[in-house]
């Protein structure tokens, strides 16, 4: 349970971090909060040659908002997001999701960007972000680029971020109008990896008909699953039992979970439908208020 040897760098500016990344190529790995990376290094499931520690890059630790979006720096600690009024008032879904991450003590160190690039398919921040939409900002020594969150997750523990790149910040749109959201997940014990996690955000028109909706499920695919087929059939409808059943049927049909020690594929599929109904109802009720 001790990590293997590695080179260690602790840059003070983003530019230095990016040139270190460029030099170290595939051997280099960024460490931020380390709440996922250090356990897997301790277990020797990962053995990076070189760690580039970004904890001194205070310029990447921020939460800011303008009229239509909130910007969060990659190094922002999860515990800071949890107590931020700016997040609570503008991106309630993220505020609701964060307390499900690990424990108080790991959220104190774990970062926003770290959770995104680690890309565990049951992780809370990726799910919340997929349900609210947004853009991920990525930098390398030669360029900066933006990726839509829908294109960010590639597969299990893999994102669009290349070995020489650094995720710097994320912009999340502030939904306007009659907005409702909900986040929920099931795990054996609080703080464990979720067996199934679910997030949704929706808006209603003046007649209580759904005008926009994003339902996302975690733990049922290699990446957070935006259930597009289900989202489409809800537009222009009021949420009724029959609509919920139709959506649940679509979910059961599209999800393709795996069996493991914690739950069988069938059980996960069943949970996906149960949680879908539950969070849609909650989000809808909240939007109607």
């Amino acid at each position, binding site marked *: 349970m001790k990590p293997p*040897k590695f080179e*260690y760098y602790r840059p003070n500016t983003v530019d230095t971090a990016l040139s270190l990344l460029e030099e170290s190529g595939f051997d280099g790995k960024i460490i931020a909060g*380390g709440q996922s990376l*250090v356990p897997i290094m*301790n277990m020797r499931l990962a053995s990076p040659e070189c760690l580039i520690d970004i904890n001194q890059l205070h310029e990447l630790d921020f939460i800011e908002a303008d009229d239509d979006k909130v910007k969060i720096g990659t190094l922002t600690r999860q515990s800071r997001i949890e107590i931020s009024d700016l997040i609570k008032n503008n991106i309630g879904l993220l505020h609701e999701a964060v307390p499900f991450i690990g*424990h108080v003590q790991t959220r*104190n160190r774990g970062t926003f960007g770290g959770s995104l690039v680690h890309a565990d398919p049951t992780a809370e921040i990726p799910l919340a972000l997929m349900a609210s939409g947004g853009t991920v900002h990525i930098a390398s020594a030669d360029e900066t680029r933006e990726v839509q969150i829908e294109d960010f997750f590639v597969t299990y523990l893999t994102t669009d971020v290349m070995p020489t790149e650094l995720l710097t910040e994320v912009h999340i749109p502030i939904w306007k109008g009659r907005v409702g959201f909900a986040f929920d997940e099931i795990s054996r014990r*609080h703080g464990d990896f979720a067996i199934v996690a679910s997030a949704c955000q929706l808006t209603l028109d003046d007649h209580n008909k759904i005008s926009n909706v994003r339902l996302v499920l975690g733990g049922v695919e290699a990446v957070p699953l935006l259930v597009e087929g289900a989202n489409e059939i809800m537009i222009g409808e009021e949420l009724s039992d029959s609509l919920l059943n139709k959506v649940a049927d679509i979910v059961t049909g599209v999800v393709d979970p795996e069996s493991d020690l914690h739950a069988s594929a069938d059980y996960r599929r069943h949970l996906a439908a149960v949680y879908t109904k539950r969070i849609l109802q909650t989000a809808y009720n909240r939007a109607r208020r």
Partner: protein
Amino acid sequence: MGTHSIKLTINGKHYVEEVESRILLSDFIRENCGLTGTHVGCEHGVCGACTVIVNGTAVRSCLMFAVQTDGEEIQTVEGLSQDGELTPLQQNFKECHGLQCGFCTPGILMSAQDYLAKNPEPSTQELKEMLSGHLCRCTGYDGILKAIQKTVDENKQLALTEGS
């Protein structure tokens, strides 16, 4: 893969040490500094036994490398009591049977210390959630919860008398 020279403060005392980058903060505290009050259970962030306060925040010392704490300030369980006097929280652990074997205790004390400083009036549910980050195989948590709750109540009382 050379070593790194680091300077840090633990419980108010300055340390200057040479460390290999792969040395975990938990091992550094125990082996280089001889502060064995910080316990090591799982070494992957699950049990909470290794929790210490780094720059005013309770974190897992098994999930940090010692080199990452160059220039930082750390408090361990040895830094709680002053002149041999237990803190009220420690005293209440003693009184409420908040420990049996004591393996989990240092970590819980450090978490609770930080948590109560930031959340002076937590609900029982919130305290339970905070404690979910710690495994205790002995007490069943009841004594621990009582000890922390008692500290919260005493602090409230204290604030009242000071206020009036």
